[in-house]
């Protein structure tokens, strides 16, 4: 009824899917007999190899214990994963079993396209992998959309560019997209993504190759976002740039993330991978963006503070501390935690709409693309919730958790909802009545659970009816019949064993009798109460 996408794995995935994987071990001992050597040594070698492979993947893929020397890093990781086998398992599982719904075909790509993907890898840590698994129809449009926004962001972020230069660039950015050969070299050298703007002409070329429908969408969003950023920059120059009210906070998040959500949704609907109804409910895609952005703002509080940026709205923090700086002082920790939980509450209010939005996606790769960041966001939210560390350093979910989440976000909505429920419950568990927003957080958690229950009910009214009346469904009746059958089999087996025992006992008694055993004497002794044989035999006559 929700028209969500179903995961349709290929045949190969069926055969070696993780579900069947454990069973293959059941055949291993038998399989072993067919091998020319019968010592257990090769098995050990194989096992060692598997463990080594696991570590190799984990070490390559992780930065849990970043260390100066690679050897120390390896040892650190090895130690870490020895004590966190579940984390390692999640990483291996993801690396081994993740089957991308689509893979980009590098052979058919032009040099220019390859360059764009190179920039994608350079500029984005988390998005590049999911973008590259998108359906071919959307692969290039989303990649270019991302790079355009990243370019815009790089201009905005650079504090070395004076406003007089910056403002017109931001406002005109949409026009540069159609100016063949446009690039920008005005960034300071230490700006992370400077190179992208220096070679922006490649992005422009690819933009011009997109379908006109996609070009319109990307241009429109670039226009609005560029102007939004310019307004913000002007305001920052003239007066205090810090976010005051919750409305301003929402508006800021809308410009930097909500608009992206809108653009992507329009791309999905244009490509017929999303339910057109998604466009009629703008709240939904707005929530998608805001949920992600607010999570980042909560997580990056320390980093932003060190860079002299404040995104937490005054309306919220002023309820808990007098000065923004107090959030970072140990003596105000309780107030700071209450403040952070109010921020989490504000963000969690979008979670329900995010799930609603995801229900409207029709294509697996698009679903994955949207679902992975959302599940990461709720896990990050859980990590940040009532965690004093957010005021001290930059915290991240572990690589293992991330892999586990990615695995669960690339199946279907039901599995994703399970993760959401899991993390909602974890947040709920950390909630404390001493927090002034205790009840509000509890309500929003309840709301998320109720919503999940609405899309995926654990029990229907009909099932409850049957339970009350004692009726059985066809499947239940069949199972009951099978159970009865099994019970009969067990009784039969026990009876058979009883018969065998009787026969064997009878045979033994018969054999003993044949050999001259005196059962009559033994029985007489027993009736007299002598259960032990006499200790010594008297040989009086000899």
């Amino acid at each position: 009824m929700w028209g969500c996408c179903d995961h349709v794995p290929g045949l190969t995935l069926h055969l070696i899917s993780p579900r069947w994987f454990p069973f293959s071990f059941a055949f291993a001992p038998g399989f072993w007999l067919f091998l020319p050597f019968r010592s257990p040594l090769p098995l050990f070698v194989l096992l060692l190899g598997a463990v080594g492979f696991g570590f190799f993947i984990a070490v390559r893929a992780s930065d849990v214990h970043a260390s100066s020397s690679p050897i120390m890093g390896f040892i650190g990781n090895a130690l870490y994963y020895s004590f966190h086998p579940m984390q390692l398992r999640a990483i291996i599982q993801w690396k081994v079993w993740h089957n991308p719904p689509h893979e980009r075909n590098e052979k058919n790509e032009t040099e220019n396209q390859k360059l764009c993907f190179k920039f994608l890898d350079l500029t984005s840590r988390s998005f590049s992998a999911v973008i590259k698994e998108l359906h071919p129809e959307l692969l290039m449009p989303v990649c270019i959309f991302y790079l355009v926004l990243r370019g815009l962001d790089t201009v905005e972020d650079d504090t070395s560019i004076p406003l007089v230069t910056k403002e017109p660039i931001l406002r005109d950015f949409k026009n540069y997209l159609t100016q063949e050969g446009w690039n920008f070299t005005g960034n300071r050298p230490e700006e992370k993504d400077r190179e992208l703007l220096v070679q922006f002409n490649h992005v422009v070329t690819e933009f011009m190759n997109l379908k006109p429908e996609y070009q319109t969408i990307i241009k429109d969003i670039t226009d609005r976002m560029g102007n939004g950023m310019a307004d913000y920059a002007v305001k920052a120059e003239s007066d205090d740039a810090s976010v005051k009210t919750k409305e301003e906070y929402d508006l800021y998040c809308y410009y930097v993330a909500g608009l992206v959500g809108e653009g992507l949704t329009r791309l999905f609907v244009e490509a017929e991978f999303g339910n057109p109804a998604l466009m009629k409910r703008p709240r939904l895609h707005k929530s998608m963006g805001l949920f992600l952005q607010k999570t980042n703002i909560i997580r990056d509080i320390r980093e932003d503070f060190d860079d002299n940026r404040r995104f937490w709205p005054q309306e919220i923090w002023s309820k808990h501390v007098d000065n923004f700086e107090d959030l970072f002082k140990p003596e105000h920790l309780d107030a700071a935690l209450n403040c952070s939980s109010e921020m989490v509450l504000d963000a969690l209010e979008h979670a329900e709409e995010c799930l609603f939005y995801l229900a409207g996606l029709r294509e697996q790769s698009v679903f994955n693309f949207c679902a992975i960041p959302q599940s990461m966001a709720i896990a990050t939210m859980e990590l940040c919730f009532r965690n004093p560390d957010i005021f001290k350093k930059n915290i991240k979910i572990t690589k293992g958790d991330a892999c586990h989440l990615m695995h669960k976000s690339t199946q279907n909505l039901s599995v994703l909802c399970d993760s959401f429920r899991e993390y909602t419950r974890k947040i709920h568990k950390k909630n404390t009545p001493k927090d002034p927003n205790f009840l509000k957080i509890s309500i929003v958690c309840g709301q998320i659970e109720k919503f999940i229950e609405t899309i995926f009910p654990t029990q229907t009214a009909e099932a409850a009816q049957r339970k009350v009346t004692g009726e059985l469904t066809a499947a239940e009746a069949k199972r009951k019949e099978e159970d009865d059958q099994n019970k009969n089999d067990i009784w039969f087996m026990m009876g058979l064993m009883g018969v065998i025992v009787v026969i064997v006992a009878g045979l033994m008694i018969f054999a003993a009798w044949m050999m001259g055993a005196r059962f009559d004497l033994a029985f007489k002794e027993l009736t007299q109460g002598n259960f032990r044989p006499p200790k010594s035999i008297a040989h009086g006559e000899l």
Partner: protein
Amino acid sequence: MASISKNLLISGGTGFVGSAIVRAFAEKYPACAITVIDQNPPSAEHALPKGVLYLQVDITSVEGLKKAFAAVHPEIVVHTAGLIPGLAERFRRRLESEVWQVNVEGTRNMLNESKQTGVEVFIYTSSCCVVTDDTINPYPNIDEEWPCSLRSTIYGESKTVAEALVLKASSSDMATCALRPSVLCGPGDCQLLPAIHACIANHETSFLIGDGLNLWDITHVDNVADAHVLAIENLLSTRTAAGEAFFIQNNEPITFRDLCLAIWAQFGHFPPFQVRIPKTMAYIVGFACETVTWAMGTTATLSRGSVRDACAIRYASGKKAKEILGYEARIGIEEAIRLSCEVSHRAHTIPSLKLVLKAPGLRFSSLSCSTSNHRCHRESRVPVNFCGDSDRVSTANYGDFQPCE
């Protein structure tokens, strides 16, 4: 719907829910004449607006009802009167005949009288217990399609039968509907809040039975009153609600544990630590308590039933009430809890409550309430009056825990 000038008769109108309905209705339709019938006269605790007529009537007596109906000639009848057994009796069957007499026969009498005197609208205050008291199922996000149970508790069964009578009686002459409120709270609540508050004095707040994830959706009494007014309006106009039952709740499910924690926090109490008791273990302990108290001839507060209640998942979707009645909770749960607790503070009931709970022998009683639904004996807040001078023992309200209404 701006001006209704009809006669309204409400049974159980001096009780917790009844008086709230009277206040809500009188405020919205001042031109209506309201008559309250109840066994108990109006009290300061459940104040009635000026100009409301009170008649002392027992709904189990047909003669009494005939007289009242003849005197009032109501066009609208709201039937809230009912008998709720206290926690100690909730899962037992000792009071079956009394509960049945008031809840089923009383409702039958009300219906018969209403039909004979040409009543147009009949609203019945049912309870979510008609569905949720059968502990065979968990009840997450249920709707009105879920089955009512005839094998639950004496209260649930009696309400099920009474509700069926009411809904069946709906006709073109007299439209009926039933509202099923969930657990109630609000100023003057003598069941939910005091029972949860009592845990502080008993040092029980650190113990969590079950996983603490089970959601409940409680209702503020004024929201239930709003729902009644909406139901009356509907049956007087479009009648889309005729013959229908509706779950009424705040539509803000929270876990039962959080509800308790929030109430304790209002009184400045925070559990110093938390020990989780698995449900099965609590269930066994409950059974042991039951056995001991059965052998001793007393009644227990901890029982298998109360463990099941504390671990139950009970919340409805609330969609039908919103769509047909246009009901939405006016008072949010946060405010509802705050208001309930504030009144308790103001009335200085809490210190006396502790005294009462510590006094031996007063915690357990046979009958929690008078015949009005959702109400407690108003003297019950003055400890001096507890000492058995009233014919109905009402102390159990405090020690007791009422999961429904």
